[in-house]
């Protein structure tokens, strides 16, 4: 009965999504108030039904209802509860339901936090999101229904893929999907602006916080995925340039460009049609990611449910969404007009360069990811594109980007003075060059790429320090220092925090790529091996029993200078239902280095093969991502957004044109 309720709720959600996608947009075009007014309640109703459907699927998982095909193929009575719940999105059908539910959540958030927006704008935004929702719910109901019954019911489930039975599954996909789906809000705002012909600074200001929130989620999602892939053996480490990883990285690159481009549109009214195009691309690349991951059109180490038949539907949907929006763009964008003029050396130029570099990087990733398809489709054979291509293309693009990151924030709008900026940055440059020369020596050996990475990272940090200092000096000198710091807008701190996050991530990537060491050894009880200045002693293997697996657990003691520091216990598990062997690495994380031990196969004489890694600074990669996300949160807390909301609520009823003028005035002030 419960699955049928879920099924029915999905159908109801589809009906409401259709209403949500058609009536408010038509109302906005024909200027019918009551039709526009339907947008909010219908969208909220749709979300309620999606929640019901999602809850029904969770219920089937928790209660081991193996008469549901999806539950029977992705769960088992012995599966621990947290993985039963996470198992809901452990397969294709359920992850689509999660996607659709999150779209409902984002739409509902838009309905709640859009009180200050003009009615027809809200109607169009929510309408566009409704149309996207129609596509996804139809996709589920036609090709991938999670509520299909299995009669007679299976006595027990086939269990969740052991690779996915990990805390990573509980949190990584929801974060990533929040990011993907979040870009649909920026997309909907862009389409609404094109439909209404209203592409102005106010539009940029409305869509900016939504874009930043989605970007924060995507940043966290990618970082979590990278971390999961780091500790899960066989997934190629913290970054592998795998198609599935690239699928999440492309929207991130374009989303990052979008955030910067929106700043220009908001502050200077420039880059309008470019900003719209980026908003369309960011979401299109999210959809493209879904297509690449789900259709099996590419091979990947972590594509878990692929089906070319379903691929056709997603491709069709992708085609309709992207082609329609690009057609709309081609039709409406020429009327948009240009923003304020700017000189060759100005903040605008630097942000434009940032946009160009990030877009080229995204295009380069897209080309590398899809190149095997192009070659195969042209009948030219089979190729695979791997890390060497991506690294040689990506690293040179990042160098100018990072250089600009140090200059852009301090440059003036419209016309900047380059010699003046360079003079102000001389100390930052000197400090970063000296550090870049010295640090590689302290790591043991000189590597020029490592030096380059350190140069880039310290340049970002040093220029940020210089800029915060000069901003501080520009505040009122008679205030106490706490007040002076507080008078600097939060978005300024947020920007620098995110930039420093990039620096931290660069340090992690550079040092671990150049200074990591590892050894593959055969170890009998009492044997020792030395890696990275640590001694690892093998103290034997014991058999243990988990809830749904049996395991061999090795005891490895780590010594330094004769003192025992810790014991690491890597496992080799066999999951009982799918009889799949799994290697659980043991990792000791520290700020300066990770010790990483994995257990291989038993070899002759009671010995085991063991692999020991020493990975310096690896955790900095994810710390950097945390800084970027925190920077985004800081930027969101900027008081100008709250100020805008307060003014708008005071003026409520004073007519939307007056409101728009207020907002424009706020920007100039």
């Amino acid at each position, binding site marked *: 009965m419960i699955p049928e309720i879920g099924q029915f709720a999905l159908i109801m959600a589809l009906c409401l999504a259709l209403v949500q996608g058609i009536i408010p947009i038509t109302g906005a075009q024909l200027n019918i108030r009551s039709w526009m007014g339907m947008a909010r309640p219908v969208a909220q109703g749709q979300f309620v039904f999606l929640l019901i459907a999602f809850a029904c699927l969770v219920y089937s998982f928790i209660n081991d209802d193996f008469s549901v095909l999806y539950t029977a193929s992705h769960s088992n009575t012995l599966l621990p509860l947290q993985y039963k719940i996470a198992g809901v999105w452990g397969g294709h059908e359920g992850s689509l339901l999660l996607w659709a539910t999150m779209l409902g959540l984002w739409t509902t958030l838009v309905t709640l936090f859009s009180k200050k927006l003009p009615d027809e704008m809200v109607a169009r935004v929510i309408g566009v999101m409704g149309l996207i929702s129609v596509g996804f719910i139809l996709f589920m109901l036609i090709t991938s229904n999670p509520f299909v019954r299995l009669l007679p019911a299976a006595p027990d489930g086939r269990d969740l893929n052991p690779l996915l039975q990990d805390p990573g599954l509980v949190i990584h996909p929801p974060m990533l999907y929040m990011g993907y789906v979040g870009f649909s809000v920026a997309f909907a705002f862009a389409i609404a602006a094109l439909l209404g012909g209203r592409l102005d600074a106010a539009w940029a200001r409305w869509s900016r916080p939504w874009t930043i929130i989605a970007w924060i989620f995507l940043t966290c999602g990618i970082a979590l995925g990278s971390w999961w892939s780091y500790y899960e053996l066989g997934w190629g480490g913290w970054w592998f340039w795998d198609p599935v990883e690239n699928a999440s990285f492309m929207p991130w690159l374009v989303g990052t460009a979008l955030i910067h481009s929106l700043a220009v549109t908001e502050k200077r009214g420039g880059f309008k049609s470019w900003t719209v195009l980026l908003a369309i691309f960011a979401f299109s690349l999210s959809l493209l990611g879904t297509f690449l991951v789900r259709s099996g059109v*590419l091979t990947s180490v972590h594509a878990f449910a692929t089906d*070319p038949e379903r691929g056709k539907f997603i491709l069709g949907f992708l085609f309709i969404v992207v082609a329609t929006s690009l057609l709309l763009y*081609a*039709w409406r964008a*020429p009327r948009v007009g240009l923003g304020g003029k700017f000189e060759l050396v100005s903040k605008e130029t630097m942000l434009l360069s940032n946009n160009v570099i990030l877009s080229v990087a995204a295009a380069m990733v897209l080309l590398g990811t*899809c190149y095997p*398809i192009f070659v195969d*489709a042209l009948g030219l054979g*089979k190729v695979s594109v791997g890390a060497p291509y991506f690294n040689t293309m990506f690293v040179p693009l990042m160098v100018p980007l990072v250089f600009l990151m140090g200059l852009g924030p301090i440059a003036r709008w419209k016309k900047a003075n380059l010699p003046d900026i360079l003079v102000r940055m001389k100390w930052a440059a000197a400090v970063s060059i000296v550090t870049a020369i010295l640090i590689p020596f302290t790591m043991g050996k000189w590597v020029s790429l490592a030096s380059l990475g350190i140069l880039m990272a310290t340049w970002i940090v040093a220029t940020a320090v210089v800029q915060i200092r000069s901003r501080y000096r520009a505040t009122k000198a008679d205030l106490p220092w706490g007040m002076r710091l507080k008078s600097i807008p939060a978005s300024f701190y947020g920007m620098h925090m995110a930039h420093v996050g990039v620096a931290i991530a660069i340090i992690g990537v550079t040092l671990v790529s150049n200074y990591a060491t590892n050894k593959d050894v055969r170890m009998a009880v009492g044997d020792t091996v030395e890696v990275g200045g640590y001694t690892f002693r093998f103290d034997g293997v014991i058999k243990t029993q988990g809830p749904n697996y049996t395991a061999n657990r090795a005891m490895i003691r780590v010594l330094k200078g004769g003192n025992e520091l810790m014991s690491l216990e890597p496992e080799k598990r066999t999951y009982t239902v799918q009889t799949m062997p799994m290697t659980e690495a043991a990792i000791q994380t520290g700020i300066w280095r990770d010790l990483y031990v994995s257990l291989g196969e038993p070899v002759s004489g009671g010995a085991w093969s063991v692999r020991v890694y020493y990975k310096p600074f690896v955790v900095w990669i994810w710390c950097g991502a945390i800084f970027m996300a925190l920077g985004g949160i800081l930027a969101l807390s900027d008081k100008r957004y709250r100020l805008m909301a307060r003014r708008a609520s005071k003026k409520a009823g004073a007519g939307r044109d007056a409101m728009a003028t207020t907002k424009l005035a706020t920007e100039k002030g």
Partner: protein
Amino acid sequence: MVRVRYLVPLAIFIALAGFFYVGLGLNPRDVPSPLIDKAAPTFNLSQLSNPQQ
């Protein structure tokens, strides 16, 4: 009022979608062996029943 340069993104996307459509019909896991139509390497082993030959 459609200007040609604003159609460029659409054109690129349509080309891309065309490739994806063709790509769906292909199997990326089906990698042809480079050894097809090549002669087996010559080798020298003694017979199992008669180790002298």
